[in-house]
Each structure stands twice: as C-alpha cells, then as structure tokens.
C-alpha cells in the first residue's frame, strides 16, 4: 500500500465516500425543490402579474406601436417564449381577436363594478369586499363562476378551527396516556400499550375519515344534538384521532428520557407515584411535551383526507358546529377543476406554499425545543 495518504492511497474508498456524501445531500435538495417548485407555480400571484378582471381597457390594434413590449405581452396574456416567437402581424391579429372577445362580454358584466376588479390582488385575497348583490363587505371564497372570488380568510379560519378542535381533543388524551404509560404503568402493561397506540398511526387517514363520516358523525350528533351532521366539530375530533399517536410517542419519549435519578430521589423522599410524575417528571419534560404539541399542530394543519371527507363547505364562521373548509381540503378538492396555469391554479399553489411555510416553522420550533431539552438533560446527568 505504500506510504501514500489521502485519496491517492485508496481511490475507490475516496470515491465511495464522496458518492455517499453526495447522495445524503438529497434530503436537503428535496426540501429545496419542494419549496422552489410549489412557489414557482404561485409566483405570478406573489408578483401580482395575474389579472382576472373580466372587463379590461380595450386597446385598439392601431395603437400597438405605442405599447412597450412588456405591456403588450401582459395585455395579450402570453409567456415570454410565446411572445418572442411571434412576428408583428401575428401579434396584431391577436390584438384584434382580443378586442372582439372583450366586445362580446355580456352587457350585465360591463356595468358590474366587480367585473373590473382583479380578484387575485392581495387586497381582495385578505380583506372583505362588498361584492355586487351583497349588502355588506364579506369574506368569500368562490372560485367558480364568471367573477371568481378568492378570499383566503374563510379557509384560514376553517383550518384553524378544525386544527384547534383536534388539538383540544388530542393533547390532554395523548399527554395523559403518555404520563400513564411512561410513569405509572407496570412494565409489562407498558410493553403492550405503547406499540398498540403507535399502531394507531398505521391507520391510513382515509380510513379515519371514512369512519368519521359513517359512524362518528352519527354518534356525535346523537350525543350533542346539533343541526348539521357533518361539521367542523366532527372533523376536528377525527383529526385529533389522527394526531394522538404523534403527540403520544414524542411526549412519551420526552417523559421517559428524564433521568431515573429524579424519580428515585422523589420516591425516596416519600412522594407518591403520581406526585413524582406530576411535580418532578412532567416539569422536567415540559419542553418535550410542548414540542410534541407543536409537531402535532404541524401534522393536524397538513392533514387532508379527513377534513375533505367530513366537511368541505367554505363558510366564514367561527362556530364549531358549522361546516369548515381547510386549506388542504381546498387544494385537494379544487386542483382537478383548476385550469393549469390559470389564476385559480396559481392561488391553490400559493395556499400550498403557505401551508409548507407554516409546517416548516412549526417543525423548526419543535425540533429546536427538543434538541435543547435533550442537551439540558445530558448536561445535568
């Protein structure tokens, strides 16, 4: 082998190591690609290039020379490649076609102020607007029809409503069970219960949705006696069900990782098992339990099929017994109808980017808190 060192000594080893390193970068690449390609499709919304106004100012073909190329391209709704490949005569005939199309808009829209509005403007996405036919400003998500209304506030409210109901249901149950399993249960009970609860995460969400739709909705309606059978409450409970295993296993891990010396010291001082669990172990593991909740939130906000199956009408209402439509549901239900590259399509991708950002942040918070917690415990050991 000689006295060579480094990659000269064993070129194959060196190559293999570099290859392994490069492959391991794929996780970073994927996160990057996901963000890039989801945001790419939504870019025109962020840059405010999309215009959905039905009635636009008609520019006569004779005035074509007065327009700058960029303006002209936007007016004719062309991509830069298409625009570059066309000669002047084609553009002129396109302008004539456009003029005719604009002239053919029915008269009832021509007098409608809504038809002159670009509904993908951030003002109309976020603020209430008094649409013609309504007597006060309202938040409306209504992507079909001649004048498409894209106010995303009802979707945000729906998402938040369903997610919070789910967490209110799941967190106490999951944390309670985690305390029981990690601190109070006998070892043989523990060995049995833990994998069983984790088995819950193996139930596909479409099956949870199906169960909520067919069985839980009826049972809950009988118990609470509300009007609509399918509402945010049912969706929230079903969602909580899907989140329980996530919160449980992280919280249980955190509680178990509290050093045994803590427990033993408390027990030796005469504390009961419950006092030890509640006053010693839980405070020590609190960051971990918090992280479990945050990660559960991330999971709940991104859950699609359950909410899609249980309730989907987009109503602007804070009542938990009304229907709700979450962001994920909207994307799943409407993507098939949206014209590829159109404003509706772009808005749906924009919602996906928002969702990605929200879960990215909640994951980061959860991760950082858990890492600090582990370091702290290791430092104290």
């Amino acid at each position, binding site marked *: 082998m000689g006295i060579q060192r480094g990659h000269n000594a064993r070129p194959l080893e060196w190559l293999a190591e570099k290859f392994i390193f490069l492959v391991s970068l794929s996780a970073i690449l994927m996160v990057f690609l996901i963000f890039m390609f989801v945001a790419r499709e939504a870019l025109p919304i962020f840059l405010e290039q999309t215009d959905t106004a039905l009635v636009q100012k008609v520019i006569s073909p004779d005035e074509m020379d007065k327009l700058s190329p960029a303006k002209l391209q936007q007016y004719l709704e062309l991509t830069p490649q298409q625009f570059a490949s066309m000669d002047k005569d084609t553009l002129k005939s396109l302008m004539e076609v456009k003029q005719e199309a604009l002239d053919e808009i029915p008269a009832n829209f021509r007098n409608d102020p809504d038809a002159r509005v670009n509904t993908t403007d951030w003002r109309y996405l976020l603020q209430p607007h008094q649409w013609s036919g309504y007597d006060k400003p309202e938040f409306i998500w209504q992507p079909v029809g001649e004048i498409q209304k894209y106010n995303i506030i009802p979707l945000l409210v729906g998402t938040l409503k369903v997610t919070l109901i789910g967490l209110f249901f799941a967190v106490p149950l999951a944390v309670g069970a985690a305390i029981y399993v990690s601190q109070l249960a006998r070892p043989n009970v523990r060995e049995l219960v833990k994998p069983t609860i984790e088995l819950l995460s193996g139930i596909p969400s*479409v099956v949870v949705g199906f169960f909520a739709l067919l069985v839980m909705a009826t049972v809950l309606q009988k118990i609470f006696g509300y009007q609509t059978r399918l509402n945010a409450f049912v969706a929230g409970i079903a969602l909580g069900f899907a989140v329980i295993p996530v919160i449980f296993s992280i919280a249980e891990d955190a509680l178990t990782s509290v050093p045994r010396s803590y427990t033993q010291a408390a027990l030796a001082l005469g504390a009961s098992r419950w006092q030890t669990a509640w006053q010693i172990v839980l405070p020590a593991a609190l960051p971990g339990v918090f992280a479990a909740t945050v990660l559960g939130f991330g999971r709940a906000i991104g859950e699609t099929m359950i909410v899609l199956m249980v309730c989907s009408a987009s109503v602007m209402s804070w009542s938990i017994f009304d229907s709700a439509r979450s962001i994920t549901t909207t994307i799943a239900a409407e993507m098939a109808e949206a014209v590829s590259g159109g404003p509706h399509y772009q808005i749906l991708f924009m919602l996906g980017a928002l969702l990605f950002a929200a879960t990215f942040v909640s994951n980061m918070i959860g991760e950082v808190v858990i890492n600090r917690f582990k370091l702290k415990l290791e430092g104290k050991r």
Partner: protein
Amino acid sequence: MNTITPAQYLPEKPARRHFRTEKFDFASLFFSGLTGLATLFILGLLAVILLNILINGWSGLSWHFVSTIPKKDFFDVKTTGVLPMIVGTTIRVFVMTIFVLPVGVITAIYLTEYAPNTSIVTRIIRAAVNNLAGVPSIVFGLFGLGFFINFVGKNLDVLLHNSDAVWGQPALIWASLTLAVMTMPVVIVATEESLKAIPPGLREASLALGATKLETILKIVLPQALPGIMTGGILAVSRAAGEVAPILFTGVAYYMASLPHHVTDPFMDLGYHVFVLSTQSPNIEQTRPILYATVLVLLMLTFALNIVAIVIRARVRKKLRALG
C-alpha cells in the same frame, strides 16, 4: 461569641413543595386514574374502529371481490371488485421502494458512519430530514404536479419529441417518485437506528484486521443492520400504501378498464377508492358493504406490514438497550 439559634438555621417557611405523608392520597389516586382512563379511551377507540370495520367488512369479503376487475359502474354491489386497486397500490408502492431504499440507506450510512457529528452540513441534513417528515402530504402532491409532471415530464416529452403528452401527465412513475420523496425520512430514521445498534467493537475488530472502512460497512455493518433496514422499508411501504393526498394529482385514476401496463399509465388505488366510495356513492346505504370490504382490504394490507415492522423494531431496540 454568638450562638446560632435554631430559628436562624431553619428556613422560616417550609418549602412550598412538600409531599404529604398520609397513607391514603385521594388526589394521587384520582389523577393516576384519569391518565389511565385517557389511555383506556384511546385503546377503546382503536378497538371500536377496528372491530367496526372487521365486523361490517368481513361479510363483503370474497374471492370474487378481490379478484374482479369492475365495470365502469363500480357501485354495483354484485359485480364489483377491487383487483385493479390492489394491483395499483401494490405496484406504486413497489416502484417507490426501488427509489427510496437506496437513497435512504445511503443517507443513513453517511449520517452514522461518516458524518462528523458537529459539522454544519450534518446538522442541515438532519434538519432537512426532520422537515421532510413534517411536510403535509398534500404539499407533496403539489410538488409532484409542479416538479415531476410539469417540469420533468413535460421537458422529457420535448426531448423525446412526443407529439402527445406521454410523460407530462399523471402517471404511476410520478406518483411513486412523489411517495419516495415523502417516505425518505422513514427509511433514514429506521436505518440509522439499526446502524447505531451495532456494537462499535464489531467495526473496530474489522478495521483492526485490515479491512477498509468501505469493506467494513459493506461486509460487517450492513448485513447486521439488515433487519432494521427492512423495518424501514416496511414502515415506508405501509405509510405510503394508505396515503391518498400525494397521489391525487400525480397519477391516480377514477376508473381504468384495465390494469396499468406501463409506468406512464395512470392507475386505480385502494385508498382513493375508499374516498370515492364514501363520498360519491349514489346510494350510501346500498354500497355500504363494498365500502367496508374495501376499507378492510386496505387495512389488512397496511396493518400486516405495520405489525411485521413493529416486531422487528422491538428486537432491534432490545439489542440497543442491551448494549447500554
């Protein structure tokens, strides 16, 4: 000389947190009972779901049901079947495994065997893996549509001079690749766990005998880690088998008259079929038996895989614990 009185060295107030020494502590019993009840409640709900599906689904299950390709109207209880859905789900998951296993295992090898623990790159890789695990499944669907179909597929069509869209449309391969990206963290974490469970002594012995690092990994470490890698693969498969959201726009079809022949074909899927049956049925009471039977087939597929994975993982963990 001052003498210290007991009042000076004893704290004035007793510590706020003191433990009662009564023999019967009602609060303790009550609250322990409450956590026990929470546990029981979760287990009970799980049991109710599983039993409900098992009891209602069992009667609808027959050889005819799992081996028939249904006609266009698959809501008909007598003639319907789920063969194309079983085949579709199995193939998409199998193709996914081909892509995700090598990448996931190699990443895990880098993280446990090569990566300097404190370096920035390692930490970024770990953060990326954790983030990937938390990305909502519907966002993976959007990614599959935006990247695989609209970018890779459409450009492939241009390169191959296809006049019709062959690659640039929803297809089996794009659904599988989307799922592969989604399940990468599952494989990485499971493989890492099993690699860590291998005693360092084995590696040291191999290196001491003159084997190189690569030889050690290929001939000593990987064979030992095989059960753990299998667990990772199985967990990824069972997770992917039940996911519907990522394949909604990337390859699933409402109805196909035949089984998929090529990776560019769309396919029918068990989970999506459950969704269709439960939300678009013309008469939910009449189609209830086939709905329950379909759910049962899906659950049996994912649960069988899950239980195998849990058993293998329990063994790996025991090994890890025994090593200290």
